[in-house]
């Protein structure tokens, strides 16, 4: 069991440790979290359409911010301050916006707890039919029916 756990944890740890750390990758990553404010409803880096009044300026600002600071959250906060909170489509990890991250996790956690409780409840409940009490031939057909029902159809 320990081996299986280790085998499962290792790739998870690797995945968590990996990630983009160079400037261009950070620029691309952050550009995918900021929305163009020209009301085209597109991500900043996707909205380099002709005649857009904002995207060129925002892209320049993003590049400058990425080279100026190493903290991605600070870059996003800069955009929130300048262009409004709606410019960033990924919620921040503090304050009210943290709720957006917590709610799905809490929902899944609560569900997991319910499943565990349900399984415990089922395990503690006595079996409805004691198999050892049954005899051979008379109930055989009924048992075959039950087995067929539970395994086939």
């Amino acid at each position: 069991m320990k081996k299986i756990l280790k085998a499962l944890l290792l790739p998870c740890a690797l995945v968590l440790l990996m990630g983009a750390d160079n400037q261009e990758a950070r620029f691309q990553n952050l550009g995918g979290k900021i929305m163009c404010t020209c009301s085209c409803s597109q991500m900043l880096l996707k909205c380099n359409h002709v005649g857009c009044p904002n995207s060129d300026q925002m892209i320049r600002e993003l590049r400058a911010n990425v080279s100026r600071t190493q903290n991605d959250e600070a870059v996003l906060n800069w955009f929130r301050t300048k262009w409004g909170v709606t410019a960033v489509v990924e919620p921040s990890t503090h304050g009210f916006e943290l709720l957006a991250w917590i709610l799905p996790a809490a929902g899944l956690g609560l569900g997991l707890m319910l499943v565990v409780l349900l399984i415990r409840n089922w395990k503690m409940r006595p079996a409805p039919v004691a198999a050892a009490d049954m005899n051979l031939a008379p109930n055989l057909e009924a048992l075959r029916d039950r087995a067929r029902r539970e395994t086939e159809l």
Partner: protein
Amino acid sequence: MPLLGSFCLLFALALAGYCFVVGVVAAVRKDAIGYRLAETARRAGMASFFAVLVAAGALVYAALTDDFSVAYILHHSNRALPGPYKFAVLWSGQEGSILFWALLLSAYGFVLRLRHKVDQRLVAMASMVLAAIQIFFLILVNFVANPFGIMDRLASDGNGLNPLLQYPEMVIHPPMLYLGYVGVSVPFAFALAALIMRYPGEKWIHITRRWTMVAWLFLTFGISLGAHWAYAVLGWGGYWGWDPVENASLLPWLSTTAFLHSVMMQEKRGMMKVWNVWLIFITFMLSVLGTLLTRSGIVSSVHSFAQSSIGNWFSGFLAIIFVVCMVFYVRNRDHLRSENKLESLVSRESSFMFNNLLLLGACFAVLCGTLFPILSELVRDVKMNLGAPFYNKVMVPIGLSLIFLTGVGPLLAWRNTSVGSIKRNFAIPATAALVIEIVVGFVLYKNGVHFWADMGQMYAMMAFCLSTLVIATVTSEFIRGGIVWKNKLQTNLLAGIYQLSRRNMRRYGGYVVHFGVVLVVIGLAGAAFNQDKEQEIGKGDKVQIGSYTLIGEEYTDDDNANYSSQAALLEVYKDGKFLTRLNPEERFFKASGGQPVHIVANHSTLREDLYVVYEGRNPDTDHPIIKIIINPLVNWIWIGVLVIVLGTGMALVPNAAPVSVPLRSAVAVSQIDERGMQPAGAGK
């Protein structure tokens, strides 16, 4: 015609009202008179379908004959609109789409009432529940959003259909989606009826299984048509934008998928009865919530209609549904006790439970993301929309876990699975998954893709690995079972697999659906390797992207009664060899004030799509600006959807007659129980 339509809608409301009220009286009386009353209620319910059909026909006729005295036709059609799109006018606006909803609901009701001999008592009660839902929608089309409103002055031409809807798939996409949304009303009606009646056994589950699968099939097909339309028309290179209305269609799909899995626990083991009843209640409520989100304007969406008071009606309806479900659940919850217990954590039952947990977790996450702007506005007075980065971070891990369960679940036996059986069953699929992962990783590395440096590409690699696991699992299930039948019938393996599938269409159809789902997942994972470029291309200008070279050949203007257009003609070379010519276009629809729509040029192969969008012209040089995107593996998504449709179709077909096998020798009953009677490939 508008007068006939209005009259038919009123008549349909009266018939649905009769069906409901008399249905209640008949259910209370339970005598011979009650029986006869129930029969009249059934016939009234069936007649309501014809009344709504005539009303819908009247609206379509008004669209086809350009009757702009009808306000709805004036606002959603025009003379130059091609015929098939005039038919689509029926569901292109708020009033028409509610009428269309009422039509589909009464059509489902008609079939349900026609097949009343399946179980007359249960169908009578379900028909009553369905009539109550019909009443709500008929009240809306009669008094709140009447599609037959008459204009004060006669206009010479209409405002036209939304240009984004003038695309062949848009004639099919909304009806498919509506058939799915409305289709879940039937299992809901049966579940509520069975609960109200304290109906014994699992008959309601058996009756509604096909109804639920049909609704799920329509939802799946409708959602994928919408995705394909977005890909082909919106011109942003993607197919899913996590728009609130897209999310609204995904919510009931996720809960219906959970129901289709957990219902097997009730059928086979008499477990999860409360869960199943609430799953179907929640699914129906989510389909109403989806309508509330689209109609009320409480969330911003490219699909949303303007804000109107109709949202309040849906809120009220939702509240009534919840109260009714809760009241009958509290009164009759003792009727829903499980008959069996879970015997092992490593079993098919527990895999279904975790599958349900993940599907509902995904449903809850999407719901939170969709409703977050409302919460944000309430708390901070700012409507903060959550975009793709949020959903991708939350949903991708859930999705990968689900694929893992899809691979593992079928290899687990009901009740209990031994360690030996796990080792035996998992060896080949796990090895195949690892081998494919290494090969794909090597090929990507050779092509200069450093997937380990990008989280999205790492997720994509995991998706490839898990998808291979599922494909290997499904294949091994077919082959192991096929070999048994091959030996038994002394035939070849293919005939053995055919015989195997024919004897359990539901199970093997389900496996085909799983196969389709992983094809879709592989297609989605391909998005992690997209490349794009935007450039001005004059005559003879070149643009290089990946292994493609595009050369500007010509650019033209065109004009007809419905729209004017600009287009470019591009020659495409791959690795220096001529491949094809592409013709991206932008249309400006006249009736809608010149609203532009992209007609994307797409060279599609199994490996990748070369997706070319005409973005407009540079006013300084008058040269077209072209956006080029290489989308790997997109075709796998559409092929996967077709496989899902095929698998669901298979699962809907009844099984061939079972083969009787004579009992060779007496076997101790206790032995049978210990073995758990798991034949080769025992499954769903």
